[in-house]
Structure formats: C-alpha cells, structure tokens
C-alpha cells in the first residue's frame, strides 16, 4: 500500500477535519494573494507619480514680461531640468475650458483674469523639485503658490507602507492560525490512528515510515489550500480588473503582466507546501511517541 493511498484514507476517513485544514489554508492564501495584488497596485500608483516629477509655480497677477522672463531664466539654471512650460492666463483658461467642456456651468462664469499664470517645470531628478519649491515658495511678492507632488507621493508612500504592514500582519496571523490548525488536526489524526501506528511499529516500521503519511497529509493541505486560495484570488482580480483599472487610470492598478501571476502562484504554492509540511512534521514529532 503506497504512502499516497494511506494518506488518502486518512483524509477521507475524517472528512470534517480535512475540510477544516483545507479551508483554513485556502483563506490564508486568499488573503495573502489579495494583499499581494493590492500592494502591487499601490506600488504601480506610487511609481507613476515618482516617475512624473513636476512642479507648478503659480504667479501673482500683474507681473510684467521682464519678470516672467527672469523667472524662466532662473529656472533654466537648475540642473536636471527637462522642460519649462509657461502657461499664460489665456492658456490657463483654454486648458480649464478643455478640462470642463462637458460642464458648461463651470466654464460660463470663468474668465482669464481670475486664473493665474504659471510655470510647469518637469525635471529628471525629483531632488531638484525640493530646491525649486524651497526657493519659490519664499518669493511671496511674485509667486502666489507652489504645488508639487511631494504630498501626493508622501501620502501614497504612507498608504503603501500601511497596506504592506497590514497585509503582512494579517497574513502572519492567518498563517499562524493555519499552522496550528494543521498541527492540531494532524495530532488528532495521529491519536485516532494510534492503534495502526502501534501495530506498524510492531511489524518493524521505522519512525519515518509511520510519519510519512502524516507529513504527506500536511503537504497536501498546504499545497491544495494555497493552490485554491491563489486561483480564487486571481479569478476575483480578473473579474474586477477592468473596473478597478478604470478608476486608477492611467495607472494599471491590477497588472496584466503574466510573470507577476506566475511568480505569485509558485511562491504561494511553495510557501503553502512548506507551511503544511512544517506543521505536520512538528505535529508528528510531538504526537508519535509509540
């Protein structure tokens, strides 16, 4: 009788215990998959903002051309400047109307005079943005406001960190619960099959021989549970992908990259198998003493 057949008998003869082990592993890896996908999405959003370093300097009204040219000249002296774009009041109005063309109420009352002129500066090194911000935010006589994505990036970074930490914490708690569930179930099964183990030992079975079916059982719980959990999370992600990606446009929050899914799939299967093996190994070591 092969080890696999013996293991299958163990699983089949206590179906509720086995279902509990499969279920808890499934939930564990479903949660891990979801947090991995969400973390990947947040990282994509963060990357999007980090790779588009831009600062906007809104000018005070009434500045003459000479002052505007001086500011442009001063800006161009900074290193790593990619592009400096001057947006006049008229151009600002044009852009505003374009952005709100579907809402005439918003465009009716607006004139060029109430919109400030501005400089949009793109850089290749985000560090320069900090210097420009420091310089122009103090020039209150010519500059009305300086906006750059520092706050957005910081906020996103904070959210990503919180999500990652929460994900790791929740996955760890569920992982520990899964571990102990499999450990206890294997222990119960060993106790239930005490007679069989005792007889096997009398017939000359080695310790490893009697442990083998229980180790395989743990591996099956981990492997099957993580497989189902991961596949289920992928199905949910694929169903919601278009809606979520539309919301985060132009960022692809739920990635289409097949390598991401292949990596997550195999990593989780490996972790599942390892978790199941570890729990059953410790369980077998703890309970097989006859």
């Amino acid at each position: 009788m092969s080890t696999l057949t013996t293991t299958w008998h163990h699983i089949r003869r206590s179906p509720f215990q086995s279902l509990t082990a499969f279920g808890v592993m499934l939930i564990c890896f479903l949660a891990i998959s979801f947090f991995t996908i969400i973390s990947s999405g947040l990282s994509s959003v963060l990357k999007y903002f980090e790779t588009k370093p831009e600062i906007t300097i809104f000018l005070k009204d009434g500045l003459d051309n000479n002052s505007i040219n001086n500011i442009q000249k001063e800006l161009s002296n900074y290193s790593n400047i990619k592009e400096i774009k001057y947006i006049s009041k008229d151009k600002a109005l044009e852009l505003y109307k374009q952005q709100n063309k579907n809402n005439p109420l918003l465009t009716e009352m607006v004139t060029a005079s109430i919109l400030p002129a501005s400089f949009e500066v793109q850089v290749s090194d985000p560090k320069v943005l900090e210097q420009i911000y420091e310089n122009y935010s103090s020039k209150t006589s010519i500059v009305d406001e300086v906006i750059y994505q520092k706050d957005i990036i910081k906020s996103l970074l904070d959210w990503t960190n919180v999500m990652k930490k929460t994900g790791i914490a929740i996955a760890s708690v569920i992982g520990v619960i899964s571990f102990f569930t499999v450990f206890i179930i294997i222990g119960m099964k060993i106790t239930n099959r005490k007679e069989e183990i005792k007889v096997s030992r009398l017939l000359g079975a080695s310790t490893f021989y009697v442990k083998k079916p229980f180790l395989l059982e743990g591996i099956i719980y981990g492997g099957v549970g993580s497989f189902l959990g991961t596949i289920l999370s992928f199905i949910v992600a694929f169903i919601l992908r278009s809606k979520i990606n539309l919301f985060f446009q132009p960022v692809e929050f739920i990635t289409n990259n097949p390598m991401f899914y292949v990596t997550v799939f195999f990593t989780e299967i490996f972790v599942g198998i390892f978790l199941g093996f570890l729990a059953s190994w410790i369980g077998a070591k703890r309970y097989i003493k006859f």
Partner: protein
Amino acid sequence: MKIKFEEVNKNYGSISALKDVNLEIEPGEFVFIVGHSGAGKSTLLKLLLNQIQPTSGTITVGDVNFAQSKKDEVEKTRQKIGVIFQDYQLIHDKSIEENIALGLDIVGYPKNEVQSKIDEVIKKANLNNRRFLFPAQLSGGELQRAALARALAIEPKIILADEPTGNLDLDNTWNLIKNLKEVNETNHTTIIMTTHNLDIVESLNKRIIKIDNGSIVFDGFAKKAKLDDSKKPTKHHKTNTNSKNS
C-alpha cells in the same frame, strides 16, 4: 539468524524485570518460553523486538548488536522478525488483505510481487473467502490465521509468538501449533513462543526456557510435570495431551 542475550538486565524503576539473562538461540530452533504472568517473558520479547532497550547487557540478532549498530541496520534486522500476538494486533479498519499488504510494505517487499505473495499466504492460511473482510467480521481462529499469514508473508527468519493461543479454542490452538511447526521444519524459521499452555509445550518436545522472577530458571527439554509449578494437571489438560499424542 542467531539470537544472543549477554548479561541482559532490564529494570523498570526499582522493579527488576530481567536479571542477568544469558541466552543463545540457534537459527531454525523452536523455543518455548514459559513462566508465570509478570515473570519477564514479554519483556524478553520486547527487547528482542527492540521496542525497549536493556538497562545493561547486549542483545545480538544475526550480526547486529542492537545497542551498537546503526539505526537502519537494527530496523532491517527487526523487519526479519515476524510477530503473532494473543490479541492478533490486526488493524481494524483494514481488510485482511490490506493488513497483510501493510506488513509487506513495511519490509519493502517488491511491489510487483506483493499481490502474488498475499495470494500465497492467504491460500496457506485457508482465508480465501475472508480476504476482503475486516477483523471484526472474523472468528478468533481466523484472526489468528490472518496474523500468522501476515507474519509469514514477510518471509521472516524469526517468528515471535506472544501467547498466540491465549484466545483460541482447542482445534484452533492445535491448528496454529501445527502451522508453526510446519514453518519451522520447512523454512527453518526460528520460532520463539511464549505460552502458559504446558500441554502444547510437552507435545512438541522442543527446547523450553522457563523464566521466573526475571531470571532463567530452566533451559532445556522437559516434561510438563517438571515445569508445572502447581503439579496439579487437570483432567482437561490430560485429555488434550493424550489426544494430541495419540
């Protein structure tokens, strides 16, 4: 496989179960171990099965010294010992065929020969129409034949039978003894059997080791009267002996 006990002692706390046991059993011998309950017979068998370790002394089976050899060598030697017990020790949720298959699997019997071996021992044990039944569905005699079939399937060099006739009626008792004798004579398998039934011991005229209070007090060939401490053989005993000897 030769069995050798040298100065073997086994203590359970302050209780001395075996004291300075020196023993040699040659390959192919049929040996009875007799003695009162608690005399040390089961301890002797447990030591031989490597289920427990001696407090002092050495046990050698074949070339393998249990205390000094590697674990896998001891396990391999251990797998050459077949076992039969009074309470059969069959797994209740496995069929008779599965119980025999388990024994073969444990000793690593070639997979492609397992089925033919099962067929062979099932036929020998006359259990053909019982092979797919579970232990609870068999009579005491059938269970003991199943246990013997499982022991024989692994082609053991030694068979340890711990009170195997304890739960059997007369017919089944003598059938089992007949089977063990046949195995001993045809395969030269060493048989070590513990028993309280002195009629069996006398009828076979084999080597007897008597243990009392953890020590070997007799080792040789003897008549029942010499072994029977009570010296009061019942009518029942006499009838059995006579019927077998006749």
